[in-house]
């Protein structure tokens, strides 16, 4: 599950190393013709750098995203839910595995990426810094966060980098099952006992703000991404994706008799655009910079898993092994 490229690498590249203009023109022409770029093709340094950043963030989001839901596997009520939730969280880890492999084709090893995750150098989707307080939170996550992620991932699967696109196509297929699972779970609670209904409404209230943050800051303030759009790295604007999400899911939320905790949320009948209150972008910034409710806990868990598993990884390594970048 992944929202959007929340942080792009804004550091300037070494100005003494300039991409060959002829190769660059050829590269841009290929992308304009809709061709995919493959690992051994020539690519601008900036393209490689931003793609690594994006795919890596996506991969981290998958494995960190497994944590808030994963804590409910041991508490899932009944066989059906328990099996489905294990399978769902397992899928998310599998997505992480696929995406780390896709990023590795660009020249950064999985180990380096995980080290950067743990040190806090690279980011992951902001929503996973919020806690899943009740069982109903897992239902809301599986439905609406996965729904938001699908919108982003379907857009990105039409991007220009072959290995990432192929990974995303498979991921989207699996995510569509998660969405069905999440929706079924929300419907069961929303049409269940008064207590269950209360649980799911409260979960929706808690998650609404992170959901509104999910696709990233408004286009008016988000970092200039014209080149990344031309290179088909960034495929849809944050606002476009947020609108698509609201258009598809707010009516479904209302159909279930649930309310959205924003009195100003409405679709403007004249413009067709959804209007809403400011979802507190200052909080978004605070959380992404490390000061959310669960940032420290998430990284601490990941660090613990890495440290405790070190002896296993070392036992797999042979002295004569050397790192080989996977092809695709």
């Amino acid at each position: 599950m992944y929202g959007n490229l929340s942080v792009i690498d804004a550091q300037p590249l070494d100005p003494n190393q300039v991409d060959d203009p002829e190769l660059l023109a050829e590269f841009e022409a290929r992308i304009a013709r809709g061709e995919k770029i493959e690992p051994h093709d020539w690519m601008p340094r900036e393209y490689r750098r931003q793609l690594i950043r994006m795919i890596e963030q996506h991969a981290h989001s998958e494995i960190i995203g497994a944590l808030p839901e994963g804590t409910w596997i041991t508490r899932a009520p009944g066989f059906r839910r328990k099996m489905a939730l294990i399978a769902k969280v397992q899928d998310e880890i599998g997505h992480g595995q696929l995406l780390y492999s896709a990023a590795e084709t660009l020249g950064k090893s999985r180990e380096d990426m995980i080290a950067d995750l743990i040190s806090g150098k690279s980011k992951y989707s902001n929503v996973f810094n919020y806690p899943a307080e009740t069982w109903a939170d897992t239902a809301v996550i599986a439905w609406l966060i996965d729904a938001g992620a699908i919108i982003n991932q379907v857009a990105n699967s039409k991007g220009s980098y072959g290995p990432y696109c192929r990974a995303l196509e498979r991921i989207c297929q699996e995510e569509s099952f998660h969405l069905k699972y999440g929706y079924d779970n929300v419907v069961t609670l929303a049409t269940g006992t008064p207590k269950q209904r209360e649980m799911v409404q409260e979960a929706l209230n808690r998650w609404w703000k992170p959901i509104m943050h999910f696709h990233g800051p408004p286009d008016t303030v988000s970092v200039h991404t014209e080149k990344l759009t031309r290179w088909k790295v960034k495929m849809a604007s944050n606002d476009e994706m947020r609108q698509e999400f609201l258009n598809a899911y707010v009516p479904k939320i209302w159909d279930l008799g649930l309310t959205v905790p924003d009195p100003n949320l409405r679709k403007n009948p004249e413009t067709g655009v959804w209007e809403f209150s400011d979802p507190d972008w200052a909080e978004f910034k605070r959380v992404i910079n490390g000061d959310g409710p669960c940032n420290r806990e998430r990284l601490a868990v990941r660090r613990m898993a890495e440290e405790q598993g070190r002896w296993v990884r070392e036992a797999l390594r042979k002295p004569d092994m050397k790192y080989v970048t996977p092809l695709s």
Partner: protein
Amino acid sequence: MNDTAALRDLLLRMADDELIIAHRNSEWTGLGPIMEEDIAFSSIAQDKLGHSLGLYRILESLGGAEPDAVAFGRSEGEFRCCQLVEYPIGGYDFSLMRHFLHDTAELLRYEMLERSSFEPLARLATKIKGEIKYHLFHANTWIAQLGARGSEESHARMQSALNEVFPLALGIFEPSDYETELAAEGIFPGEAALRGKWLETIAVTLEKGTLILPSLDAVTPAYGGRKGYHTEHLKPLLDEMTEVFRIDPSAEW
């Protein structure tokens, strides 16, 4: 002779083992030493949950309650799992050794049960056996890798895990009150026969991993689970497992 009681006891022991080890294995989801192991333990957990569900369904057909009520509605003393499966996941060494010793016994048990005179169990055993084959392939590969082909540390850790888990694993074969009936009826040849095969089978893999099995005379099997006497770990596990279900056991979740 009360062969239904004998059959129920056998089914419950097996179903509870599968449920509780599935629960423990699922705790690795998100925390494995490598992502591939998260995924493997998650898969194994799903299969084992499925096995326990199949067994509880047979119990239901013998007049028991429906599977969710049995799995999520009983108190600790009503469980018949062996103590081995109750222990927390500990380190990967402990979990892997438990997985290996448990699943070897499990595969051999279902191979025996394929020939059971109780047909619903024989049919289920064939299905389950096909899945456990892969669980054991996974366990055997890792035991050999971490035991013989890994590092000094991994070998030492696996040997120490074997020393710790072996007496607990012997608890799998705690004799029931119905051994004679089950064997006479052709339902199940018995825990002692299973244990004999298990000792022969684990010896082969342990040798590949250059690991040494503690002497049987030097250890005390962890018995009690099959009679409802459990470690201090089972109650907290059940409290956690049933936390949401208990909000309203009559509700649909």
